[in-house]
């Protein structure tokens, strides 16, 4: 290697990046989402999706579910850095392919097309727990719940069938069985 006299070192070898779902329980107070999101952007971590809502009205606890990707050491840092935030109560971390974890995402699709294509579209959604929420002469709004990649695929299928609007919640997660994450 040629001689380097830089003021900063060169990047080292990178580990393999993998997908994780990070679940964070936080106090539902002003600015808490900015703290969590700012930690990710400030340290160069990735957010693929983020879902958040208050889950305990009495204690004002919100549950944030973040889909992210990174090397094992980055994922470890994400967890440790999150735990340092004052409003954070606990942090759980699941690999995306963990069989003990349920992942679901909800999506709404608006389809505007011919009767034939609308029927095709409805059929394509059928196996994902679909409900038609609204209907008009040439359109409908349908709700599905599925895995992220299933929704990705569904969007591809629906596009030529008159899909004009998509709304997705981002993934939420929960462990199987009677156990809860402490």
């Amino acid at each position, binding site marked *: 290697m040629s001689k380097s006299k830089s003021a900063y070192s060169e990047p080292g070898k990178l580990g393999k990046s993998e997908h994780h779902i990070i679940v964070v329980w936080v106090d539902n107070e002003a*600015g808490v989402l900015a703290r969590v999101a700012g930690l990710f952007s400030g340290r160069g971590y990735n957010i693929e999706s983020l879902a958040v809502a208050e889950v305990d009205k009495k204690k004002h606890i919100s549950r944030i579910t973040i889909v992210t990707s990174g090397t094992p050491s980055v994922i*470890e840092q994400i967890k440790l850095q999150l735990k340092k935030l*004052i409003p954070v109560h606990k942090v759980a971390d699941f690999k995306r392919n963990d069989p003990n974890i349920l992942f679901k995402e909800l999506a709404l699709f608006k389809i505007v097309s011919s009767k034939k294509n609308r029927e095709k579209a409805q059929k394509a959604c059928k196996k994902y727990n679909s409900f038609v929420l609204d209907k008009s002469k040439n359109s409908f709004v349908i709700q599905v719940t599925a895995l992220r990649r299933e929704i990705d695929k569904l969007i591809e299928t629906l596009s030529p069938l008159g899909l004009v609007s998509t709304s997705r919640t981002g993934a939420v997660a929960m462990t199987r069985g009677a156990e809860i994450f402490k």
Partner: protein
Amino acid sequence: MGKLFSGAEIVFKVLEHHKVEHIFGYPGGAVLPIYDELKNHKTIKHILARHEQGAGHAAEGYARSSGKPGVLLVTSGPGATNAVTALTDAYMDSVPLVCISGQVPTHLIGTDAFQECDTTGITRPCTKHNWLVKDVNDLAKIMDLAFEVATTGRPGPVLVDIPKDIQFKKTNFVLKSSNKKKLNGKSSSNGKISSSDLDNVINLMKKSSKPIFYTGGGVINSGPDASKSLRELVSLTGFPITSTLQGLGAYPGDDPLFLGMLGMHGTYEANNSMYSCDLMINIGARFDDRITGKVDEFSPKSKKIHVDIDPSSIGKNIKVDLAVVSDVGSFLKALNKRIKEKHKDFLNSNKQNISKWWKDIDKWRQKKSLSFKNSKEVIKPQYAVQRLYELSKNQDTYITTEVGQHQMWAAQHYKFNKPNRWMTSGGLGTMGYGLPAAVGVQIAHPDKLVIDIAGEASVLMTMQEMSTAVQYKLPIKIFILNNQYMGMVRQWQELLHEKNYSESYTAALPDFVKLAQAYGCVGIQATKPDELDEKINEMINTKEPVIFDCRVDPAENCFPMIPSGKPHNQMLLGPEDEKEEVSDEGKTLV
């Protein structure tokens, strides 16, 4: 119903509860109610800075030299944004600061009101936590929590943003005394150290034939007792010890077991020991990039132990074999106890084991990597620091620095024997830190000798704080190694950019002696090596603030150094080593 207190009164009530004696600040429209209340609290003295950044660094110097949190009071908008550099500096170097900022009244927030800015938004990434107080009933609780967050775990800055209407509003004052008072680095949650951890550490120590202690600012932050325990541990083991920039003073700088500072401008023996060791015991340091150099080749053959109060510091940059999350003071105490109980004869039984290692180290020491070619005509900056050390070491001296070559020369040539005597901006590298920090140190230690070893470029960034020093009769000494260049910038341009000294020469420097007189303090100039001692003594004996213009060799470079991208065993020792051409790849990495 009891007496009602205004928000401003509550602020002072909590400050009094935490035994705050000094606050550093600058008034403005949105904090006037708090400033108005100042007169009713005689135990709290306000130090008026000339710029909020200066107030912030002064609070840092105060905190680092005293072990108490520094308190900073600024107004909204520009007051808060000016404090951001100091808050970030404190965040990087783990200094406990409580910053109280005024904010426009609640009903004007979000309207782009006069001197409004999103203070909590701006300071979120540079504080451990911050609060916007929207209800006066929350104020006491938040203020109290602010002190707890700033001073526990890994210490750091916090900010409480108080809208002006909240400062006027009245309520009952209740402060639950459930919060136990904890000082720097005394983590409550991680207090237990398991004996199996200790035994694992001792086992690794016993197996090692090339051990080294690598200690950092965590030892200082843990309090003076941690430094005492560290000294005991080193004497119990006979292991060599090196320290980071922030850790200097935790172990005596003139002790034979001390290898000097490590890292980019560390000694040859310290860096080679780090590279070649088979056991590295990191106590309260964070594997910063100025320390590790090229991560892939960092100490390739060693087992690594890391003791740190901050779990996120462990494994962030370097994988370690044994991690202990703990306050380093408690850890050292427990480890010493264990060694004395179970391994009484550790030092003697292990001597043979590491004798070859000490021979290697002595060989590296022979290189005398801190040596330099002295001159009779021109003052060499290293010589100036050495003379300053020799002439001030007989008293309890506090040293602050700015950032650049002079900072590294100070770290290399000034030997510290006690913790909390060395205040420097390591993580953020803030030029302009040293002068205001010296103000804060002198406030905390009015009778001690406080010297800012400065560069002429850095010191001009916060020179206005001389006015503060004169106002409060603080006899700080500003010892400027004046080479007319931003020396470290010039050094890098020499190494990397074919001596194209782009904008690193200051063509119109002020006359520092006259500048001193203009501020109402004393100016001294030295230009020749043979007058240096006399002038330094004159400075030390002056009872007023002094600006000392020490004219040094403008071409001197700071050695030894590890060029980045290189491991620890490939150092440049002096000008002869720097002749090689620099690759284009190397240039892009700056």
